């Protein structure tokens, strides 16, 4: 089992295996063919004709057949043993099969019991076999035992294993069925199975241990221990069809017991004892059977005390003929064997050559494949190496580039740093240098600035002075224009100039606004004109000075008349009457006190006031203008004072 698995796992051996397998199979087939041949050959003459055909052809066929039927009764044990063997032998050997029919005919009365026994035995053995096969599939130990010691157990187990294997791996249908025997085990199994050399030893073992070893043999000792030798003989030639060496060995033991058995009989029968047939090379089962029959006959004759040497001549003749036949058969067999061997050898050689051819082809193929693979491998290796070299080159280039770039960058950085440090140091030096001279320069510039400021201040002062000067000039111009006029003239232009010069001074503008528009539109009279007009007004006022309240024509006439006769007052007259007021006003006017004069005139009542109304209005206008001009002049003076 383990070997089989190992073999399965070895795939290298598989291609070779088929080459070897046929060789083994041939051997097996040869054996199988032989077995079948023997089986087929024997059944045809099966019951008793076959033995009679070869050997007692010349002798009486009928008596020989009749005779054994009667005597076998006492030899039931031997027959039964011979009978028992076939029950087990059918799978194993053909030799017993031929023997079997003979005894079967004898124990016909016990047929039923025996048949039942046979049936049970076959059933049991079949069951046991099936169980063995099943258990060997289960247990490894039992598998080893079963395949080694049970005939065909290996085949059966191998067949089931193969089936299982196929079921498990349906793809490998072409696998050999009996691989465990076929593969590597060849060296071991062939001798074991073939039995050319090793069977000799086993035969010896069988001879000594008899019942122990083979399962086939187990049955025989149970039924007939005495005839155990015979079944073995039969079984062994059946197992191995064409062994040359074991045959004589096996034949001898067979012959010897047969000789021994009559030996005790001889003392009883004195001279007429017939010798048993002793065929030197009675390996052939047919010959054996014949010899056995003849021996039986001889024993029967020997047993019969009354034969009296009647059949000695005939028996001797038969013996000699039988020996001849046996020798013929042996010769034929030898020839057959030789031819078979030759055939086998030729086939061997053929297969060897075929195998060698196959192996050579395989080797060639393998070599070709190997060279192919080597070439491929070389190509691949070269390709890989070239690609790797290229890659390496590229990597190196890239690394070099990167490194160079980095170096450049570092250089640049260093240069930048140096430049920066240089610039900073230079700046520091320059700053240090500059601080000395720049300080002085700063001082100079500050002093210049101060000077500029001073000049600008003085400029403003000068400007203000100029302004005030202009204002004063303008005021003076207006005054002079008012004073020097012959007749009242409008002085709008002068006032406008004054306003411009004043540059919208609030005080100046307010003063100008206080002047009655009529004043500068029509102009104002100067002092002389005012006095002149006052004199005219005074004469009229004097005419109406005596008028009462709500005076009519008569009173007016009276006042007009009476005023002509009134005394004129002069100087600062005392009193509230019209004449005194007029005198005071005239004095004040002459003194230049226009304001006082106006106040005096304003105190008049009635017609006098009505008549002096216009003059009074004029006086007021003049006074307003004078006041405004005075205010402007003082403002100009104040500004000129404020500048400093």
């Amino acid at each position, binding site marked *: 089992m383990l070997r089989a698995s190992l073999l399965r796992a070895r795939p290298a051996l598989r291609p070779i295996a088929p080459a070897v397998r046929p060789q083994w199979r041939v051997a097996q087939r040869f054996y199988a063919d032989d077995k079948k041949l023997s089986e087929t050959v024997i059944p045809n003459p099966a019951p008793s004709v076959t033995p009679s055909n070869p050997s007692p052809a010349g002798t009486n066929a009928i008596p020989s057949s009749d005779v054994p039927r009667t005597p076998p009764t006492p030899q039931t044990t031997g027959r039964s043993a011979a009978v028992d063997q076939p029950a087990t032998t059918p799978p194993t050997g053909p030799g017993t099969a031929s023997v079997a029919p003979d005894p079967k005919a004898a124990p016909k009365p016990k047929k039923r019991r025996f048949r039942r026994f046979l049936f049970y035995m076959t059933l049991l053995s079949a069951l046991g076999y099936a169980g063995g096969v099943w258990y060997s599939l289960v247990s490894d130990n039992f598998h080893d035992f079963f395949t080694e010691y049970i005939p065909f157990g290996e085949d059966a187990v191998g067949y089931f294993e193969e089936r299982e294997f196929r079921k498990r791996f349906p793809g490998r249908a072409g696998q050999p069925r009996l691989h465990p025997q076929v593969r590597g085990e060849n060296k071991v199994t062939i001798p074991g199975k073939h039995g050319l050399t090793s069977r000799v030893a086993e035969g010896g073992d069988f001879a000594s241990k008899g019942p122990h070893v083979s399962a086939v043999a187990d049955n025989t000792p149970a039924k007939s221990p005495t005839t155990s030798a015979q079944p073995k003989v039969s079984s062994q030639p059946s197992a191995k069809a064409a062994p040359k060496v074991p045959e004589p060995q096996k034949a001898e033991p067979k012959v010897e017991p047969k000789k021994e058995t009559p030996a005790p009989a001889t003392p009883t029968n004195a001279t007429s004892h017939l010798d048993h047939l002793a065929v030197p090379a009675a390996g052939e089962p047919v010959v054996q059977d014949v010899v056995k029959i003849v021996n039986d006959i001889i024993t029967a004759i020997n047993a019969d005390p009354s034969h009296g040497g009647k059949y000695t001549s005939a028996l001797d003749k038969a013996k000699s003929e039988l020996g001849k036949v046996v020798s013929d058969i042996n010769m034929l067999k030898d020839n057959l064997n030789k031819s078979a061997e030759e055939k086998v050898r030729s086939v061997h050689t053929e297969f060897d050559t075929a195998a060698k051819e196959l192996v050579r082809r395989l080797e060639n193929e393998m070599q070709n494949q190997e060279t192919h693979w080597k070439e491929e491998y070389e190509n691949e290796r070269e390709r890989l190496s070239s690609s790797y070299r290229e890659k390496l080159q590229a990597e190196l280039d890239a690394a070099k580039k990167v490194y160079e770039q980095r170096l450049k960058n570092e250089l640049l950085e260093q240069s930048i740093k140096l430049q920066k440090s240089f610039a900073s140091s230079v700046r520091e030096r320059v700053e240090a240098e500059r601080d000395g001279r720049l300080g002085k320069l700063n001082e100079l510039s500050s002093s210049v600035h101060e000077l500029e400021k001073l000049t600008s201040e003085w400029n403003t002062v000068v400007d203000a002075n100029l302004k005030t000067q202009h204002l004063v000039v303008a005021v003076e111009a207006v005054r002079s224009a008012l004073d020097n006029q012959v007749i009242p003239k409008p002085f709008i232009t002068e006032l406008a100039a004054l306003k411009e010069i004043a540059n919208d001074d609030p005080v100046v503008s307010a003063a100008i606004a206080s002047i009655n528009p009529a004043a500068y539109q*029509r102009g104002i009279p100067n002092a002389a004109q005012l006095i002149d007009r006052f004199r005219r*007004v005074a004469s009229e006022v004097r005419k109406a000075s005596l008028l009462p309240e709500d*005076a*009519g024509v*008569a009173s007016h006439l009276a006042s007009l008349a009476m005023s002509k006769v009134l005394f004129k007052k002069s100087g600062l007259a005392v009193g509230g009457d019209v004449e005194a007021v007029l005198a005071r006003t005239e004095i004040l006017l002459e003194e230049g006190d226009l304001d006082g004069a106006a106040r005096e005139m304003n105190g008049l009542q009635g017609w006098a006031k*009505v008549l*002096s109304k*216009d*003059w009074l209005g004029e006086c007021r206008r003049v006074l307003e203008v004078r006041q405004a001009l005075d205010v402007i002049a003082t403002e100009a003076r104040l500004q000129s004072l404020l500048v400093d």
Partner: protein
Amino acid sequence: MADNSSNPVAPIPKTTRPMSEALLNEKWDRCLSSMLIRSGLGLSFGIVFSVLLFKRRAWPAMVGLGFGAGRAWEECDNSFKRAAAPSKDGLRVIRP
């Protein structure tokens, strides 16, 4: 300057309103003229009446003169009295 001075010269005498000191004189002129006209008218009406109705008698003419003169007097007196009230002329009137 000459133009400026010459231009305003004209408007000053152009004032339509009479000067305040000439106010009384003007009233007197009107009174006299009206008296003359009305007394002349009355006289003439009386003469016509005397001629047409009173057969050239003197008194209807005198009555007519008297009516005319009386009418003129009355008018003159009224004008004097009315003018005596203080006029608002020359004073600035500030309206609320």
